[in-house]
Structures are given as structure tokens and as C-alpha cells.
């Protein structure tokens, strides 16, 4: 074992120690992980090694255009294994046993390769020619890389500038930088899940999230793995377990030519994430960190004490009972308690990232550690992540390369508990707090929490509920792979990869007896685990061949297999003598709750193949096919086949193009067609599964077993057929480049729960019926607006428009209504001819007047209506308003989305900002709908202050009655178009001259702000809200779960 290896092992052990470091010690010790990181890297300088010496060969390599030195050029002595890299001055030095004459082979990304014959030992000056940018660039594609010039598919990269934006999770970085990718967060709670759609949603019921390929490891983002069921409230995003600052690049594969190689999992697009790796020749230590302060960017308007008391009196009036409060009592309540403000805080967020990377002729490595700690703006919520990574690659010999990527992280989320104050309220402690009556004091005079609330049954206090309830999710994730690349022959490479994703969740929940969650049960504790394991083995053969530098072939063939298993268990107990053991010892609970456990396994076996052919890098064609066999599908349809073809033409390479090549530097036309699939159904969906149930005989629990679903051996893939036409054009030496795509996608054989006549004993059967189409255009514009020596302004504009339409839901079904939140009428409908996420309800037209009633305007049936009630609009020809008068109130699908990102640098300063927006999308403001329902027990929306009374006949809201039925009406379908300044950062790089004296390569300080402003008409917390994130049929419902956040931060980047 040599010095190198010993240090690598030392680093790895330290890293593991660092990761196992737990948050237990509390907030005071936040500095400790940073210290640990420091200690961890003290051994680094020893890493550089020396070689034995014979003769010395030196030289310098420069850019032929401007004679700038080129650093990192690979200088290889032909016919040997000797190679070095140039340093920052462009200089290289061999100490070698080789004798002249010899030949240098020079290669450098973005430049033409060159061979230079050397006949003496003098210092050699060599210049390299710049390749036409954009043509030689290599892009990441499925199972390999490809010259950008030869690409036939639609592949977009997330702009580098956006990758450095501070974010909890990398999905937050996908928005605004790539056209056709939409990201909506389910809530602003730290670590919350989000919904990611590439070119709209294809599936109605199952799986619309893209496929993630992280350093070659394929994984669906299954947020179910972070939720055992023991904790309550919204789930934790599985993506948040990945450290975003490790990411070097993100590529989005959008069309079939690009995604079909992922076959049955490519239909929703593919996100290829590549993490940073070491570069040859340079050992570098990087530290970056930031500290920020977050606050709620908006508060909802609620009734104050006096307003609430007056509302109660009006309800009494409509009930025909005496007023509850005298006028003087109403005045004395004043503003009352501001529960909303009491539950909020200014919350810190910090991130520290330390990495060491480097390499020599044979090995490249990167070791990084990350500590991220974000407190939520709501009390007692936060998200902490510790992570470590080792990326290592070594050329064992000329034809064998091995490597590994190992990532380990631990994430802890303290989430808002999910208790609901009434049966129709959102299951969120925050909603409970918002609905708590303002005349109830928050604290007693002695400073303790007031638990006397005569308006609810349980003597609790929502702030105390939030602070005392433990609702914790711990996720340990290990994502690792090993790979081997073996050059069997010249041009023929075998790649074998073995990888594993170990996803372990432990959830802890404890609601003490003094909280609403534990009051009824005498203290309620629950623990749950999920252990999800995914194994992946991939074996590919790639053959690269060119004939006379005219015909370029790349042929890929492979076999892969992936198996997945998840096991979960939940145990709970109630009636605890005290809170001392919290969730840690269920045996102290007097009453056990029936435990549960579960397990699922699935397998996917695949054959894949791809042929890329290019003639002179002008005419390109890519043909791919993948065959997938999935265990989760019916026994008659295990295998599916997913072909694609893509062609492209680099028109600008033609001779006839030469005259205008000064203006149009590049023009490429692309077209592709292909099929991809989706089989994201849970295991055992096609089987006649039986379920356990309970009954009691003589007070004793007995188990019953009976079918829950019918077998469907014909269950098969959803198939998406996609056509794409694209244009890549750049002007003025690539100063401006434009990418335009138009696409059409049709998804057939949808996996739908086909409704069955209920008299069969089954509500539905999972079958392949129906179809959905998505069509749209995408424009991406990149411009170096200013490109001078000191002043650079780079701008990126993206625009996307997608139209979604349901074409069929199967024979005889025109629509279905997704299940509404408990006790509510569903605001959404899934209907043929309309887009998914369509809101369905009544139009209204102000309030009924006595005149209207006298005239006999149509009234809502089933509810007695009087003057001051809402005036519902009957459709043409209807004399009364019934549920048949519900109609399309708009959809949550935007007309278009856009992003505008800029990086501007002037001398040492840099400024970047990202504006992002969406137009034409609607949100159903369900929290407002509930909050505008007057009751005697809950607080209500501030808008109810302006209600109809005899004295205020022009009020906005109807007269107060006791708990009317909340109807789905146009009022709550709000325009949620918005324009948001997502990020603004101003940085300063300390001058290189100063830094070089202290051997520092880079020192940058910056200040930033996130969500500085949002322009929108939407009245809820956040126009990007999406409560039912995973459910494609219930997009765009805002159930008011967590306030939106604005952040200010300062940070530093340091490189040694």
C-alpha cells in the first residue's frame, strides 16, 4: 500500500466519522461539523507525489488565437503511458526515460487535437487551434457521451450559473433554466417534496416524475420511501437527501431520441446528474459556505378579535338565537391574538461544503463533505443534512479503467405535524393555528401557554402543539457504484457497472398529552422504518469506429438489470404515564396500536441498443431500441419494446452556407420520433391480491382475509409516442444561440383504475385504457450580451408552452372526479377533451338581493337561499342551480412558463439573477374556501369582514350563517400567474495578485436574496403551491400548509 492509498483510506474513514456525527448535541454545536471537516482535510498537502527521474522535457501550450496559456492540456508521449497536464501558465514538464525523437499527442476540450514531433530537449512552444464552439463539445447522453454536433435528440443542460444557487435540494435548481421543465413545491417547509414535469404530464394515475440518473445510477424519485406512515404531515423529498453542491452538471433529456434508450422509464424525461470529479494535475481544496436569514414573505389576512366576535353575532342572528357578544365586549377584544405571527420566526439557514479534488496521470479523485442546516420559518421545523462523497477513478492500465462514486448522507427533517382541527380542515398544524379563534389568548399571564380554548374540545394551544410535537424523519442514504471500463480492442469498450442505492428511513412521532395529537390518546408515540434497496447492474459494449474520417459510427449494446425491494414497519402506542421517554420506548404506553409491516420487490431486466452514425458530422442519425421486462406487469405482457429514431443536419457545415457563416455561425435541424414507456405501478398490481381486515367476536380482534382487487394478467406499459422537431441556431460566432423545439406526445394504454359497476364488489380494476396528448413548443435563447475583457454579461431566456388534453378515458367513461379532501366537494375533474388539473364548479355573480328573489332568479337547490347569499349562475335554460350547472373554471396548467437568468461580471464583481414565471395557470385556493366558511368555533378569513349585512348590502362575501356548505365556485379558482425574482446574487472576487501571495486560488464573497419579490394576483401564501404533489389528477390545489419564505444570505467561496 503506497502513501496515496493510505491517505485515501484515512480520508474515507474520517468522512464516515463525519457523517455519523449526529445532531443530538443540539444547535449550540453547529460549528462542530465544520471543525470536523477542517480536521479531515489537514492531511491533504501530503497527497502530491514525486516520480523517479531520467531526462526533462518541457514546453508551453497556448491558444493559437490570442496566445493565452492553456492550463490542463493533456500532453501524451505517443506510444507510451506517459502523460502530463499543463499548469496555469500553460507549462508542462516530463521527467521521463523516453528519448527523442518522440511525438507529443495534445488534446484539450474545445480545441483541435494535435501531434507534434520533438527532436531535441529544448523548451517547446506549441499552439492549439480553437475548435468551432458547439460542434466539438461533448454532451452527456444515456449510457455515454456524444459530440454535440452529432446529437439528434433534444437535450438541454441546466446553466452552470444556476447550479450555484443555494438550494435545499437540486430539483429547486431545475426551474427557470431549462425550457419545458416545471417544478412546483408542495410547500415551503424545509425538505418538502416537489413535483417535476418535463413537457407536461403523460400519465393520469401513475408516475409523471422524470427518471433520475445520478452518476449512472438509475433511480426513480420515490418519496414514499421517506414516509413509513409513522410521522404525519407532508412527506420529505427523497431528492433532498442529495447534496446539490456536489453537482457538476445536469442534463435534461426531453425527446424520444434521447430518452428511448431508457425504454419503459423514459416517458417522463430523464434528468442526468453528474457530480464533480477531480481533474488531472491540480489538487484543489474548495470551501464554500453561506449563512442566511429567512422570513415569511407573506401573511394571510384573518379576522381580528373584534371582527370575529361580530361575525359570531351575525351567525347567531341567522340562527335566530341571542347575540353572544355585547357591543362593548366586541370593542374590548380589539385585535386579539395574532396566532399567525406567533407561530413564525426569523430562521437561519447555513451550508458548508468542503471538497478536495485532484489527480495525476492515472487517478482522479474528489472527496467532499457537506453540512446543511435550514430552520423553517414556522417554529420547530427544520431540515439538516450531512453528506460525504468520494469519487475515484484510476487507469489501471492503458485499457482498463476502474472507478467508484460513493455518496453517503443523513438527513433529518422536523416537520409540521398533520393534525386537523375539524374534519374538513387540512391535516396540518399550521392550518389549525390559522383557524384558532383570535380572542383566545396565546399565553397566560405567567408566560405559560394558554390551553383554555372554549371553542374546541381539546384543551390545547396550537403553538404548544407545534413546539411540543415531535414529527421527525431521518433518512440515511448510501448511493454507490463501482465501474470498470475495459478496452477490448481499439474502439471497442466494455463497461460493467454495479451500483446500489440504500435508502433507510426512520420516523419518530410523539404527541404529548398536552397537544391536540396526544390529548385524546393520553400521549401518542409512533416509530416507523422504511428500508429500500435498489441494485443495478449494467453491462454495455460500445464500439466507436470511423472510416476515412468521413463515416463515424458509435454502436452501443447492453444488458442491464435492476431490482428493488422495500420493507417497512410501523409501531405505535398510546396512553403514556409521562413524556420522559417520548417515542423511544413504546412499552411505556398502556395501549398498543395494531402494528403493520410491508414489503415489496420488483425487477426490471433490459436489453438496449443504439447506433449513431454521422457522415462528416453533417448528417447524423441515431437509432435506438430498448426491450424492458418488468415484474410488476401482468403475466401476459411482461416485455415491452421502445424504439426511436432521430436525424439531424448541420446545415452550417455545407459549402453553400459559407457566405453567411459570419452571421449564422451554426445551424442544425433535428427531427426525432420514438416510443417510451411508463410502468410505475406498485408491485403486485396485476395479481388477485387479498387483504387482511379486522372484526371482533366477544371483544376480541379476529382477522379476516378477502380480495381487494381482481387479477389482470394483461396489465402492460403506458406507451408515449413522441415526435420532436428542433432547430439549433447560433449567430455572430456563437454569441447568440437559439434552440427551438416543437413536440407532440401521445400517451396510450394509460394505466387507469377503470371504474367497475359497484355491484361486482369492486370499485375499479387497473387496466390499460385511454389516452392523453401533450404538445408544445420550447425556446431557449442564450446570449453573450457583452463579451469584453473586463465586462461579461451572459443572459439565458427560456420559454415553454405545453398543452395537455385528455383524449380518452376508456370506453363509456367521459369523466371522473378524483376523491376530494375529506368532507369536501372535489374542485377538480378529469374529463375527456379537457386538460388534467381542470377545476369544476359553479360560476357566481355577486350576492342575491331581495329583488332577485322576487324576480325568481335561479337558486341553488338543496340549500335555502335568501338575500345576502351567494348568487350562483345557472347555465342557459336552467331554472335552478344544481350540480349539472358546474362547469370548467380553468386549469392549473399554465399557458406558458418562462425564465430569465443573467450573469454579469465586471472585473472582480459578479451579479446574477433569475427571474422566473408562469402565465395563465389557476390555483384552487382551498384554504381560503374553508377559511371563508363562517363557524362559531374557528377563525375565518379577513375577507369575511366585508360581508353582507343589512347595513352593508354591497358586501363582498355572503351573509354569515352557521357553517354553510363550502361550494366549489369561481371565486376560489384564482389566477396564479406570477413573476418571481427567485435569486439575486452579488459577488466579489478578491484580486488574483493578492491571493497568489497567500497561495489562494480563489476567494469570493457574495450576498444574495431568494424570492425577493413575487408579482402575482394570487391571494394565498404562494402561487407555486401544490398540496397534492404526487397526484396528477389533483394538481393546483392550495390547502394552506406552510408560509412562503424569503431569504437573505451571505456566502464565501474559497479555493486553495
Amino acid at each position: 500500500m503506497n502513501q496515496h492509498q493510505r491517505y485515501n483510506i484515512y480520508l474515507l474513514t474520517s468522512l464516515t466519522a463525519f457523517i455519523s456525527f449526529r445532531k443530538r448535541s443540539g444547535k449550540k454545536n453547529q460549528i462542530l461539523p465544520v471543525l470536523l471537516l477542517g480536521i479531515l482535510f489537514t492531511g491533504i498537502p501530503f497527497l502530491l507525489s514525486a516520480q523517479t527521474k531520467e531526462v526533462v522535457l518541457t514546453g508551453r501550450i497556448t491558444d493559437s488565437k490570442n496566445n493565452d496559456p492553456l492550463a490542463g492540456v493533456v500532453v501524451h508521449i505517443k506510444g507510451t503511458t506517459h502523460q502530463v497536464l499543463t499548469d496555469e501558465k500553460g507549462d508542462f514538464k516530463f521527467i521521463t526515460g523516453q528519448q527523442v525523437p518522440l511525438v507529443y499527442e495534445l488534446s484539450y476540450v474545445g480545441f483541435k487535437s494535435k501531434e507534434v514531433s520533438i527532436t531535441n530537449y529544448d523548451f517547446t512552444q506549441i499552439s492549439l487551434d480553437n475548435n468551432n464552439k458547439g460542434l466539438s463539445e461533448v454532451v452527456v447522453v444515456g449510457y455515454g457521451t456524444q459530440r454535440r454536433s452529432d446529437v439528434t435528440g433534444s437535450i438541454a443542460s441546466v446553466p452552470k450559473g444556476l447550479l450555484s444557487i443555494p438550494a435545499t435540494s437540486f430539483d429547486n435548481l431545475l426551474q427557470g433554466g431549462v425550457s419545458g421543465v416545471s417544478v412546483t413545491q408542495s410547500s415551503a417547509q424545509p425538505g418538502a417534496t416537489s413535483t417535476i414535469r418535463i413537457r407536461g404530464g403523460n400519465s393520469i394515475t401513475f408516475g409523471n416524475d422524470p427518471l433520475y440518473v445520478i452518476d449512472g445510477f438509475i433511480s426513480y424519485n420515490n418519496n414514499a420511501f421517506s414516509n413509513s406512515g409513522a410521522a404525519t404531515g407532508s412527506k420529505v423529498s427523497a431528492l433532498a437527501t442529495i447534496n446539490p453542491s456536489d453537482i457538476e452538471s445536469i442534463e435534461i433529456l426531453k425527446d424520444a431520441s434521447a430518452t428511448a434508450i431508457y425504454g419503459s422509464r423514459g416517458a417522463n424525461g430523464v434528468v442526468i446528474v453528474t457530480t464533480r470529479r477531480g481533474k488531472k494535475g491540480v489538487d484543489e481544496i474548495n470551501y464554500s459556505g453561506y449563512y442566511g436569514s429567512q422570513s415569511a414573505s407573506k401573511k394571510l389576512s384573518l379576522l381580528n378579535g373584534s371582527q370575529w366576535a361580530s361575525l359570531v353575532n351575525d351567525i347567531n342572528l341567522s340562527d335566530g338565537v341571542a347575540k353572544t357578544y355585547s357591543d362593548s365586549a366586541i370593542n374590548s377584544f380589539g385585535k386579539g391574538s395574532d396566532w399567525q405571527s406567533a407561530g413564525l420566526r426569523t430562521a437561519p439557514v447555513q451550508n458548508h461544503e468542503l471538497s478536495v479534488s485532484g489527480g495525476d496521470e492515472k487517478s482522479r479523485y474528489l472527496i467532499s463533505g457537506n453540512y446543511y442546516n435550514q430552520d423553517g420559518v414556522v417554529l420547530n421545523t427544520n431540515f439538516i443534512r450531512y453528506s460525504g462523497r468520494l469519487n475515484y477513478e484510476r487507469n489501471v492500465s492503458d485499457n482498463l479503467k476502474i472507478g467508484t462514486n460513493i455518496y453517503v448522507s443523513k438527513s433529518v427533517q422536523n416537520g409540521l405535524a398533520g393534525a386537523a382541527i375539524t374534519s374538513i380542515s387540512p391535516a396540518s398544524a399550521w392550518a389549525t393555528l390559522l383557524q384558532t379563534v383570535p380572542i383566545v389568548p396565546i399565553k397566560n399571564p405567567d408566560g405559560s401557554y394558554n390551553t383554555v380554548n372554549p371553542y374546541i374540545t381539546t384543551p390545547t394551544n396550537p403553538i404548544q402543539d407545534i413546539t411540543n410535537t415531535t414529527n421527525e424523519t431521518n433518512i440515511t442514504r448510501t448511493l454507490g457504484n463501482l465501474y470498470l471500463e475495459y478496452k477490448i480492442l481499439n474502439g471497442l469498450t466494455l463497461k460493467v457497472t454495479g451500483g446500489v442505492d440504500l435508502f433507510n428511513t426512520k420516523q419518530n412521532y410523539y404527541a404529548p398529552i398536552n397537544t391536540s395529537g396526544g390529548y385524546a390518546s393520553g400521549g401518542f408515540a409512533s416509530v416507523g422504518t422504511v428500508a429500500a434497496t435498489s441494485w443495478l447492474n449494467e453491462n454495455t459494449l460500445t464500439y466507436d469506429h470511423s472510416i476515412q474520417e468521413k463515416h463515424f459510427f458509435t454502436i452501443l449494446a447492453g444488458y442491464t438489470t435492476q431490482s428493488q425491494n422495500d420493507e417497512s414497519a410501523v409501531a405505535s402506542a398510546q396512553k403514556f404515564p409521562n413524556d420522559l421517554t417520548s417515542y423511544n420506548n413504546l412499552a411505556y404506553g398502556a395501549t398498543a396500536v395494531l402494528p403493520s409491516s410491508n414489503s415489496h420487490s420488483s425487477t426490471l431486466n433490459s436489453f438496449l441498443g443504439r447506433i449513431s452514425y454521422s457522415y462528416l458530422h453533417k448528417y447524423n442519425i441515431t437509432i435506438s431500441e430498448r426491450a424492458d421486462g418488468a415484474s410488476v406487469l401482468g403475466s401476459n405482457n411482461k416485455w415491452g419494446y421502445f424504439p426511436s429514431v432521430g436525424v439531424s443536419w448541420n446545415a452550417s457545415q455545407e459549402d453553400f452556407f459559407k457566405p453567411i457563416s459570419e452571421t449564422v455561425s451554426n445551424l442544425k435541424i433535428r427531427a426525432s420520433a420514438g416510443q417510451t414507456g411508463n410502468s410505475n405501478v406498485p408491485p403486485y398490481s396485476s395479481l388477485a391480491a387479498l387483504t387482511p381486515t379486522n372484526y371482533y367476536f366477544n371483544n376480541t380482534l379476529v382477522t379476516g382475509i378477502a380480495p381487494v382487487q381482481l387479477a389482470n394478467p394483461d396489465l402492460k406499459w403506458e406507451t408515449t409516442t413522441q415526435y420532436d422537431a428542433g432547430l439549433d441556431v447560433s449567430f455572430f460566432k456563437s454569441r447568440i444561440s437559439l434552440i427551438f423545439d416543437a413536440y407532440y406526445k401521445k400517451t396510450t394504454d394509460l394505466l387507469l383504475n377503470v371504474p367497475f359497476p359497484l355491484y361486482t364488489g369492486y370499485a375499479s380494476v387497473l387496466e390499460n385504457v385511454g389516452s392523453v396528448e401533450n404538445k408544445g413548443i420550447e425556446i431557449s435563447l442564450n446570449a453573450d450580451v457583452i463579451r469584453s475583457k473586463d465586462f461579461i454579461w451572459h443572459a439565458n431566456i427560456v420559454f415553454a408552452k405545453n398543452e395537455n388534453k385528455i383524449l380518452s378515458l376508456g370506453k363509456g367513461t367521459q369523466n371522473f372526479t378524483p376523491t376530494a379532501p375529506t368532507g369536501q366537494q372535489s374542485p377538480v375533474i378529469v374529463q375527456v377533451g379537457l386538460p388534467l388539473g381542470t377545476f369544476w364548479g359553479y360560476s357566481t355573480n355577486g350576492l342575491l338581493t331581495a329583488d332577485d328573489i322576487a324576480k325568481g332568479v335561479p337558486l341553488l337547490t338543496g340549500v335555502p337561499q335568501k338575500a345576502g347569499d351567494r348568487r350562483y349562475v345557472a347555465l342557459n335554460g336552467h331554472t335552478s342551480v344544481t350540480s349539472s350547472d358546474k362547469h370548467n373554471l380553468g386549469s392549473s396548467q399554465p399557458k406558458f412558463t418562462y425564465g430569465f437568468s443573467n450573469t454579469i461580471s465586471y472585473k472582480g464583481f459578479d451579479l446574477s439573477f433569475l427571474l422566473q414565471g408562469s402565465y395563465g395557470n389557476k390555483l384552487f385556493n382551498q384554504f381560503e374556501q374553508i377559511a371563508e366558511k363562517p363557524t362559531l368555533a374557528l377563525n375565518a378569513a379577513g375577507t369575511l369582514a366585508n360581508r353582507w349585512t343589512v347595513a352593508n348590502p354591497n358586501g363582498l362575501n355572503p351573509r354569515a350563517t352557521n357553517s354553510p356548505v363550502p361550494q366549489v365556485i369561481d371565486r376560489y379558482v384564482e389566477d396564479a400567474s406570477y413573476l418571481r425574482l427567485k435569486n439575486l446574487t452579488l459577488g466579489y472576487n478578491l484580486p488574483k495578485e493578492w491571493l497568489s501571495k497567500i497561495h489562494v486560488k480563489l476567494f469570493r464573497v457574495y450576498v444574495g436574496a431568494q424570492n425577493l419579490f413575487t408579482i402575482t394576483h394570487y391571494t394565498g401564501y404562494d402561487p407555486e403551491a401544490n398540496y397534492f404533489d404526487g397526484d396528477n389528477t389533483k394538481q393546483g390545489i392550495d390547502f394552506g400548509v406552510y408560509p412562503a419564505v424569503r431569504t437573505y444570505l451571505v456566502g464565501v467561496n474559497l479555493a486553495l
Partner: protein
Amino acid sequence: MNKHIKYIVLSFILISSTFISCNKLVENPDSVIVSSQFYQTSSDAVAAVNAVYNTLNSDPLGDFPMYGRQLNLLTDNASDNQNFSPSNTNPDVRALSTVTYVSINGRILKNWQQHYFGINRANIAIDNIAAIPATAFPNPAQQTQLINEAKFIRALLYFNLVRLFGAVPLILHNPTSVDVSSLQIPRTPVDSVYGQIISDLKDATGLPATYTGANIGRASGGAAHTLLAKVYVTRKQWALAQTELQSIFSGGYGYALFANFKDVFQKATKNGIEHIFSVQYATNGGEANTTQYLSQSFNSFNTGTYPIDIPSDSSISALFDTTDTRKAVTFYTSQFNALNGQTIIYHNPYTPYFNKFVDYTLSPLNNQTISGINFPVLRYAEVLLLNAEVLNEINGAPTAEAYSAINQVRARAHVSDLTPGLGQSDFRDSVFLERRKEFIQEGQRWFDLVRQGGQVLVDALKVFPAKQAATLKDSLYPIPLTEIQLDPLLTQNPGW
């Protein structure tokens, strides 16, 4: 080094090929039992029948249970006894209470679904248990008994359906295909549905007379006779009904009235001498999908909020004589809050509130969703009242035995004997009035009104301002519209 490379490469390939050979696409579920593996042993048979009982106190999707909420909405909220409270904002519930429901009413659909869900489980149990070799049962009688228990529940559910909806599809087997068109069938005539009910119940009369130990709560032969009597009464087949009632009296079942009416709805006295068949509830640790929802008749000490349902108006509690002990068991107007030692008095236009299913052993009182109060489906008081009714019909006037039957029920409630010498019609009215007072919230009233004719239902409902929308078409519920859409062979009831 170089010579080792091929070994490295080879071993990688070897490991890969292990992966390849291991990964079969056939599913061997580890956490799920599949139909083909089950229905082999006697304990499988027992579990299959337990699952049939389960449909009575739960919902497959976690909704409210059939006996415990959903059936109550159709038979009590839609009757003259009961209304929705202002706290109940479910539009479907409000529509049932105000008799303004339409054929897409979600609660009507839910009842339809829950009944057929239970019927399907019974069908599966009956067919699959019959296919198990008799040798699999240690006790040969067990096989028949389990089948007959399932038949009893199937009959009970079809009896509800045929009274709620009229002719309904008579389904007796689990579907064998997922092709909807092969499953569509028209409605089966009422007489044929009753034919199946009667045949199932006749089989079920062979069930054990009583159970002991861990079997208490299963359907008994007495329950089958009682239900059969009720079926015959509904069909006005008085003589057949009388035979069934006689076999209950003479069959040695040992049924009697509780001395105290309160004991019908107590946890301590569940499955007692008066209970012939009850849907079982137990105060549990939160088992999935089991919620006694009627117990939430009390859910708050806050006088500003209301229970889910309320009586139609104060005239309902005024039906009871001052001496009637049933009144205090049926309604409450105050609750004792043990936490602060105060008694909260509820006084508003919606009081008194219903009380029968409130579980007073639970503390704190807001935890009523885990109430352990059974729902009595058949009890001896009903046998007596059916007997009074049948004798009055058969003999053209009340006999002494008829008087004795009704007076036993009245005496237990501390109400004086019924006026002697009533004519047939007056006596009939007295029996229905007695049934009304005896069975509030017990899923009887709407059936009793319809049994007397559609006009009686309409007249009874129109007494209340909230129920003015009642018409003759309301004597049958509409077939849920979505069912007709999925099966064009189904026809709608008249007037819908």
C-alpha cells in the same frame, strides 16, 4: 499487473452474470396473499367469513361504516326522525335530510357500494369454502356453519338493498373477468331477490342457536329466524312470519328483554339476552377502517358546535311519555366534563342531541370514534313488536297475545299498557309508533314508513319544514347514476 487485468474483468463479468440469472420477472409476493394460494384450510375458511362480517363495521376506503353511519343516513336522516346539524356541511348528507337528493348522491352510492362489497365477500366465502375438501375441517359441521354465516349476511344485505332500491342485480359469484361488458346484467325482479334471501336464510336457520367464548357475536339460527320473520312481514306474508316467530319463542333461544333499556347500548352488556344479532364494535387501539361514527352524536363540550345529526325538531323527543325511560337513553341535553367538574348544558334550537351510541366509558369524551358500543341489528324487542303486528294482521284485530307483546316492550320502558280494545288499524298505528320510539337511530324508521305505503312516508316527512320536498318517488332510492352509466342494462326507478 497487466496479467491480472483479465481476471479483474472476468470476475466483474461473473458477478454481473449472477445478477442476470437471479432476476426473474415472475412475482412472488412477500407481503400479499394471492387468491390462488388461499382457501385451502379451515382457518382460511374462518378468515374468509371474518372478512364478510368486517364489511358491516368498516369501509374498504376508510369511509364511515355501513352499520355505524352510512345506512343510518338513508334510514334515519331521510326519515321524519332526524336531520343534519349546522356543523354537518356534507352536501350529500344535507340533501338526504332535506329529501332533495339526486341520483348522484354520494351517500346513496356509498350504501350501494358497501352492500355489494359485503355481498361479494359473502359470495367468495360461500363458493370457495364449498370447494375446500371436507377433510380439511377438523369438525365436519364447521364447513356448513361458515357457509351459512356468510349466507345470513348476504341475505341481510340483499334485504336492505331490495327495500332501499327495489329490484337490484342479484350477484352470487365473484367476477371471473375484467371485461366490464361481460359482467353487465339487468336488475333482477324483486321477487327473485326475495327468493334468494329466503333461501339463504332458510339455510342459515341451521346455524347454532347460541355461541360461547370466542364465537359470541356470530350469526345464529335465531338471528336467521328473526330476519326471516322480518322479511315475511315486509312482504305481508303474515302466516309464514308467524311460523318463524313461533320458532323463536319455542326454539329454546332464551331471548328476553333487558330489564333496563339502557343496557341495549352499553359496552358491559353487549351481546346480552336481548341482542339477537349485532354489528360488533370494540374500543380498539386504532385498527384500520373501523369507526363507530354514530357515537359522535357527542363530540364537543363547546355549545357553539353541534353533533353530526340532530332530531328533526323538538317534537321527536316530545313523543315520549315523561315516565318513558327510553327518552333519557335516546337523548341528552347535558354532559359532565370530568376535566373541570362542570356540567355543560346544551340548549339551542337543535337540542336535545342523540345519545344511544355515545360511549361513556371513554375518557376523555372526545375520543368517540373508537366507541365500543355495538350496533343492534336484530333484538328481542323487535321480535315482540313483529309478533304484535303479525297477530293483529292475521286475526283482523289485536289478540291478547298481541297486546301482551307490545305491553312487554312498553312495561320495560316504564310506560303504561296500551289502551285495550283498539281496532286493527289503531293497533297497527300503535305498533308503528312504538317501533318509532323504540328504534330511533337504529336503521328502522324509513323502512317502517315505506312499509306502510309511499303516501305515509310523504305525509310523515311533510310535517317538517325542512322536508317539504318529499314526493312519492322517495319511497325508493334512485339507482346510483354512475352504475347506470357503467351498465346500460340497468333501469332507473320511477320518478328519478
